[in-house]
């Protein structure tokens, strides 16, 4: 009973609250980091250095008026943000946050589930998350939103490929689809050393799937106003917002898991290492956003089909060849 029910429930609660808190504070971190890169402070006046800012934003959005445009497809319009956020949260379930430990004679794992098809699960559901974006854009009945949705679907369709191929080379080296196995296999030498090409391909195509600068086609503020979420207000918008950052957190933890050795690291406990690495990746995301211009839609496609995909494929072949030889 305890093993099957109570512990998972406790874990779910902890995971949900902690991760959502982290995600909320990712927005704060983004604003602070962007601020400091841009020679300013970022939020300062709500709490110490603006620490209460995400909470204020959340409550405000919760109590804002819901606007549903007349020409929106109402059911889909309401469904889209829900898809976005729920898929993002589902993904959190199988991320291994740290090594298992024993308490009261019970072995506690720091992940909710460890399905044998772990990484495929993530790839599959990450794609589903973009349904939220696409449907949100389409159902708004707004041309900007429509174009944002169209761009989002094209982006996802393309970048899924190189993402998968980058992962395949890791799968080949680990010989398992389970995330926990992948982390365990990195004891000693991280995958980023063994697979630098896959690492970069994964980083780039992951950023693209997240729709972050320099690949923020679907929302491209200056081109499409807000793109897909142009008609969304209040909590629905907040859900999109939250989903975006949850995806970012998931992405960062995936990079950590797949390439940066997960919880492995000297001195500190595993979970601390995990979060340090994850935040480093998040920082890189924000840093890149602050520095680079946005690519153009067709160039993004070109980058994928003419550069990332061949590189990832070649990497898979080379990995296979090396593994066959050694």
């Amino acid at each position, binding site marked *: 009973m305890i093993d099957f029910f109570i512990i998972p429930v406790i874990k779910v609660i902890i995971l949900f609250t902690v991760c959502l808190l982290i995600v909320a504070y990712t927005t704060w971190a983004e604003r602070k*980091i962007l*601020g*400091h*890169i*841009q*020679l*300013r*402070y970022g939020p*300062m006046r709500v709490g110490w250095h603006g620490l209460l800012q995400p909470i204020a934003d959340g409550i405000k959005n919760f109590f804002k008026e819901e606007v549903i445009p007349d020409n929106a497809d109402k059911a889909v319009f309401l469904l889209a943000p829900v898809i976005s956020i729920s898929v993002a949260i589902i993904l959190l379930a199988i991320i291994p946050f740290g090594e298992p430990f024993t308490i009261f004679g019970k072995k506690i794992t720091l992940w909710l589930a460890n399905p044998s098809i772990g990484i495929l699960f993530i790839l599959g559901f990450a794609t589903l998350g973009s349904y939220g974006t696409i449907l949100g854009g389409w159902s708004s009945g707004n041309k900007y939103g429509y174009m944002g949705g169209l761009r989002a679907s094209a982006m996802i369709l393309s970048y899924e490929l190189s993402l998968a191929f980058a992962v395949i080379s890791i799968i080949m080296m680990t010989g398992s689809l389970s995330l926990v196995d992948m982390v365990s296999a990195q004891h000693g030498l991280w995958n980023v050393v063994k697979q630098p090409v896959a690492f970069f391909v994964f980083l780039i195509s992951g950023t693209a799937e997240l729709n972050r600068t320099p690949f923020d086609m679907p929302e491209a503020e200056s081109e499409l106003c807000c793109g897909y979420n142009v008609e969304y207000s209040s909590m629905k918008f907040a859900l999109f917002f939250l989903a975006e950052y949850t995806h970012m957190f998931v992405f960062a933890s995936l990079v950590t898991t797949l390439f940066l050795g997960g919880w492995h690291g000297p001195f500190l406990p595993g979970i601390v290492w995990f979060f340090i690495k994850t935040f480093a990746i998040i920082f890189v995301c924000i*840093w*890149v956003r*602050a*520095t*680079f211009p946005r690519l153009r839609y067709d160039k993004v496609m070109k980058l994928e089909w003419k550069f990332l995909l061949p590189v990832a494929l070649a990497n898979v072949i080379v990995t296979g060849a090396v593994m066959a030889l050694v």
Partner: protein
Amino acid sequence: MDKSEIINVSGMRPEKGKYVLPFLKGLAYTLKNFFSKPVTLQYPTQKTKRSERWRGLHRLNVDESGKLLCVACGLCAAICPPKAITIIPYEDEGGTRYPEKFVIDELRCIFCGFCQEVCPKGAISLTGVYDYVDYNRRDFIFDIEKLKKPETFEFKGK
């Protein structure tokens, strides 16, 4: 136009094939700025000093005895481009003119400083008060009483 006066900027076009290095340079530049001190003025707690010539809210200057210097000649009202100044002059038996009514619509005013420039008596001057805001249009109609002490309208916030 001879050639020596022209720079052809095509020479500044980057060479082909440089991909990674410029990216890294840019990232390094932003990272450098990440660690440098912000230039932000934390406004309500910190305030900078306005320059001597700053054109803020108007003040009607008074002499030592507290009497307005203004003689209601109406030059400022005449020069004012948005016509924000209304003066109703009054002349007492002694022949001294003073403004019965001197109203400046601070909202209408564009703070060009012409009134201060043309005033032959130095009676009107623009102060360093720059952050007066209010809820109501009525509050911006400044009469003589308000114009005597524009400093009190400075924004006080924490």
